[in-house]
């Protein structure tokens, strides 16, 4: 099983940077071995290229989920209410991560092995740094992601051996 960890975000855009900040920290900690680390700050459409039955993909991004700032959640798109497919997207600039995942699903790609590590942002403003609440939790986010990947790897190994 190939592990792909994708950090999504924009620098100098407040908490929108969190995906890239966590990815940077995970790489520094070096606990997760043999993974592909990918930064996405521009075209999200490329995510589809990484989807394959044998890939475990974790996308790290700021997500508005209605939680308190800095809280996090790991989920799959199958956990979400699918509104996207019913509506037109209004602009090509609005073709984001979720739209890509729904498109992947529409063309028959397996999305069960794609997870999103979402962090609730506090502020998203241009020329702003990460908020203190998110900065303080960077180590915790990394630990949770490392545990999650380890758990998935063990699960995969167990089922492969059996």
């Amino acid at each position, binding site marked *: 099983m190939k592990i792909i960890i994708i950090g999504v975000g924009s620098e100098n855009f407040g908490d929108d940077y969190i995906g890239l900040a966590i990815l940077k920290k995970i790489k520094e900690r070096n606990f997760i071995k043999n993974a592909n680390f990918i930064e996405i700050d521009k075209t999200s459409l490329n995510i589809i290229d990484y989807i394959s039955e044998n890939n475990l993909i974790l996308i790290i991004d700021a997500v508005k989920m209605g939680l308190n700032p800095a809280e996090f959640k790991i989920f799959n798109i199958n956990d979400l209410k699918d509104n996207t497919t019913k509506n037109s997207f*209004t602009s090509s600039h609005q073709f984001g991560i979720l739209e890509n995942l729904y498109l992947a699903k529409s063309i028959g790609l397996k999305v069960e092995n794609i997870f999103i590590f979402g962090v609730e942002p506090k502020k998203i403003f241009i020329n702003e740094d990460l908020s203190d609440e998110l900065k303080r939790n960077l180590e915790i986010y990394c630990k949770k992601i490392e545990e999650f990947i380890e758990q998935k790897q063990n699960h995969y190994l167990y089922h492969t051996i059996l």
Partner: protein
Amino acid sequence: MENLKNINLDISVKYITRVEGHGNIKVDIKTGELKECKLEIVEAPRFYEAFIRGRKWYETPFITSRICGICGIGHTLTTIAAVEDALNIKVTEQTKLLRRVLNNSEIMQSHSLHIYFLAAPDFYKTTNIFTMAEKNKELALIGLRIKKLSNDIGDVFGGRSIHPISSIIGGFTKVPEKNEMKSLLERLKKAEEDIWKTVEIFKKEVQIPNYIRETEYISLKHPEIYAFNEGNIFSSDTGITSYKNYKEMTNETVVPHSTAKHCKHNRNSYMVGALARYNNNYDQLKESAKKVAKELGLRHPENNPYMNTYAQLVEVEHCRVDCIELIEEFLKNNLVYEKPIEPEIFNGDGVGAVEVPRGILYHHYIIKDGIIKEANFIIPTGQNLANIENDMKEFLPKMIKENKSKEEITLLLEMLVRAYDPCISCSAHFLEVEFI
């Protein structure tokens, strides 16, 4: 609209979907009289021309590239052309060819986004790419492949897929590696199958609305090649003129219902973009691109604006073949790193005119002591807006005569706007005002 005297029609489409940016369609027909027919542009202006003033000459391409995430390469190349024009920088032949590949990649990328993701759902009477992909998975996959290939060409030749960094004023900061080019070459050759599969699908499954209105077509023209990166301005009405005369060709005016200015030249509107280039420069298309056009039923000249999407596919094929030929030449003759040419003067007035996916993009700078004093950008979508409105006004009575329902007319008008592939965010400019 004599014979439509009993007709009342009120159409209001807030935020046309599957276009870049925000625009509304408003139609009001009262007892046969067309009271209102507008394409409102409601996107907020972003003041790029204002905040680039005071920046240094060499910073400009990196700033203007950010005007658009889809046409970042086009804005980069146009700024570079304008600054080089102002500071009298003459680049090498290799630089010109590398820029041609880079621009080809953006034409392919942007056109494929429009053809497969924005326009194709209309062909299948679906609302978006997700539901369209359920009806024709293959078409969605082809779109993704061509878009990825185009982005990767941009990455190799421009340093990254969007907002290129290695293409600078005076040349390039690096040249692509042989192995990178070989890999692209293989994929470009393979993409031929995808183009022809698309042609086959469109021929079999797609019915393009048949509304004809002859208009003035404006594009760049070059004596030797299908003009994208360089050339003078050609009007199908009045012939050729220097790119320096862009203001005489565009005649921008402010209209109350649009934050993007309207343009006109010989008539009260004109068209730019794939169809205009196809009509003006047909003879210089690659043979296989002409074949694609023939198979898709494009006439020459083609006066059906809905056919712009097909003209885009013709250009994707043209750019694909052009990229293959150029990369083969680079591999044969070995690209060498050339130090970018630096200016010897730091004062000047220069214009850049480059064909970007939606038509001619103009950038104009006045530079004093290496600092930008004045900037003017004229964006293709702005040039097309008046023509879209004129199409709407001409086609509406025909649609009504054909007893189309309000829903059908609304969809046809939306499809018309989408066929022009407008990039509304780029076209929304600040209004120039003078205080007493």
